[in-house]
């Protein structure tokens, strides 16, 4: 099978998979990773692990690539007639919600049913004073599925998850927009790396992990690190690109660079080694400063077991945690290629160089 990044990324951002409910996205990733690895398994928290054996003599060192696959979203808290009250799973700014297309994951006689719906804002005169013109707190918003109350009562329960349903759309200049590019863009980059590694020599064992429950605190990554016990880990997650409302310390341009994180979560020797490989292969990289530690899986991977050295890569992304996130496909490919070059360059005694002076 030839792996094609764009259709794969599109299929990943066309499915749900909220934190703790990752089955739909894991089902999309699994067959692709099965083709690119020697074996796959699922962790106790639902992370997907795919192992490629290295060519070095046993016992071989191993590197873990962690990219979270879970999505932010919503959950039903109450049902009033046909209207669903909601809360959030992960960090959602309620200001993006009114008018948002969603899928309610209900059930009928034990079978899952997907109900299209939308987040709606009641008119001003049905709201208290603070709802008339200010941002609407989530507690005043509803989801409407277009079904009548009787039907809703049969299909929807409190606790049902609600995912964003924005379709993937290719924008100009090799960019793509959709929900959950945070962090499926990184899962795509990891897949690019696995694909590259399937055609070249690598001495190390490589375990790619699509982690679960990152958006609620690195839960999947923590358990997977313990399970896999890697010598070191590459964590890849999206970072802030420039653009309207952009910013952050990096403020990276789309399509121009692979940010490598520099901060409390990142081992400087790994940073140097990654940078050296990038320079050798003329892959443009930039330092992404995360002085007090990263809001990514790196935060949990680093303190798993007796400690795991971490290097972090980023993919610049606009409008993080909205259903219209934007990334450059070029950035995704580059990050994947950098990981592959880096891993295939690893000598068996590489860890001897990962030291504190």
């Amino acid at each position: 099978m030839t792996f094609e990044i764009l259709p794969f990324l599109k299929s990943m951002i066309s499915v749900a998979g909220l934190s703790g409910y990752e089955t739909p996205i894991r089902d999309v990733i699994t067959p692709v990773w099965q083709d690119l690895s020697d074996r796959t398994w699922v962790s106790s928290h639902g992370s997907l692990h795919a192992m490629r054996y290295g060519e070095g003599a046993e016992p071989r060192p191993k590197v873990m690539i962690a990219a979270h696959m879970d999505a932010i979203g919503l959950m039903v808290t109450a049902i009033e007639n046909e209207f669903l009250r909601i809360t959030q799973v992960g960090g959602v700014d309620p200001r993006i919600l009114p008018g948002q297309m969603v899928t309610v994951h209900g059930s009928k006689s034990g079978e899952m049913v997907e109900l299209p719906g939308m987040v709606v804002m009641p008119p001003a005169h049905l709201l208290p004073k603070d709802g008339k013109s200010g941002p609407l707190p989530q507690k005043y918003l509803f989801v409407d599925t277009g079904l009548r109350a009787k039907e809703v009562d049969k299909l929807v329960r409190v606790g049902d998850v609600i995912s964003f349903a924005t379709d993937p759309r290719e924008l100009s200049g090799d960019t793509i927009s959709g929900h959950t590019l945070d962090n499926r863009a990184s899962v795509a980059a990891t897949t690019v790396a696995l694909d590259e590694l399937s055609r070249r020599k690598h001495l190390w064992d490589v375990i790619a992990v699509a982690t679960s429950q990152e958006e609620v605190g690195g839960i999947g990554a923590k358990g997977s690190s313990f399970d896999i016990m890697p010598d070191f880990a590459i964590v890849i997650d999206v970072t802030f690109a420039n653009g309207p409302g952009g910013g952050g310390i990096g403020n990276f341009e789309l399509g121009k660079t692979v940010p490598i994180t520099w901060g409390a979560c990142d081992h400087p020797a790994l940073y140097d080694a990654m940078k050296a490989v990038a320079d050798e292969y003329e892959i443009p990289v930039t330092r992404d400063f995360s002085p007090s530690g990263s809001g990514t899986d790196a935060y949990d991977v680093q303190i798993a077991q007796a400690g795991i050295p971490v290097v972090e890569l980023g993919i610049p992304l606009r409008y993080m945690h909205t259903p219209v996130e934007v990334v450059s496909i070029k950035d995704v490919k580059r990050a994947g290629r950098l990981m592959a070059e880096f891993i295939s360059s690893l000598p068996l005694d590489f860890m001897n160089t990962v030291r504190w002076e």
Partner: protein
Amino acid sequence: MARQVENSKKYSPKLGKKELDLLTRLSNALSVSGDEQEVREIVYEELKPLDLPMHTDAMGNVLVRHEGKGKDRLKVMIATHMDEVGMMLTKEDGDGLFEFVVIGGVDPRQLVGKPVIVGRKHVPGVIGAKAIHLTTKEEREQVLKVNSLRIDVGLGGSKLVEIGDRATFATSLAVLGPSLRGKALDDRLGVFNLIQLLKNAPDNIDLLAAFTVQEELGLRGATIAAYHFNPDIGIAMDSTPANDMPHFDGEANHTHNTKLDGGPAIYLMDGATIGDHRLVKWLTETADAEKIPWQYRQPGRGGTDAGAIHKTRAGVPSVSVSVPQRYLHSPAGMVRIDDELNTLKLMHAALSRLDKSILKPQENK
């Protein structure tokens, strides 16, 4: 007063594949006030086989005349508006990023984090927002103002769109169980219904169909269309809010305006027009006789093209009939298919019963 209508001439509208296709094309079209070309083209294409006298006037209204048979026919103007609320790109602000302004009544809170389409080629774009991670609590307590938002069509996108282009939400019409969810159902349902009425026109009247422009900017197209037609009576077919949601604190909601599943909404009074008593009675009596559910739109503010038509020349008795709809002027509205079809059925049945006796002066009780 009503004419008797033979059963064979009655019309039972359906929403089959052909009808749904047309409605989808209408709803998905980009036809923001001031540039209604896309819907105009669909109207021409649909009506061409009927071979009726049809022209586009000075502002872009499409005016179609279906003449009935017999003498002394009533001239009935029906207006439905082709335009929708939307946006216009006003200034480039970096490659593929554009400042924009809103056209018509769009709550800025509906814009944030939405996919859009830009210009005649429907170039895909998005209206993003600052990442929640980078916002302060104080910022999150403020509404994101339109002038802080940008339409982003991607890198190199400045070659694909230009300032002055119109934009709207990138929403595709969808059937959700008993409902339709789509953008610009205000008033593409009306446009759809008027096309169906022309295709099934009763021949006891002259049907003067006005597919109007710039309703959202103050009923401007209807003003000149009514002058041109000089009708005996005027009807606006539009869509009106169904605010039938729960009150935030559980109080009974007495300000619903209309309710979904309540049937066509007949107007007694809105902010622009007092519905002509004779016409209101004609519609409600027809609905009752045909066993079509109906509701009064709660008297209140707002307005339809009837607001312009009834003031035309020496005055034109006018009324409005609307499909109740939730969430107008947002990325998507929602209507019940039953309400839509019943509106069309009511209009056809009512027109079929109509003759000049309707104009008999009635005492204003």
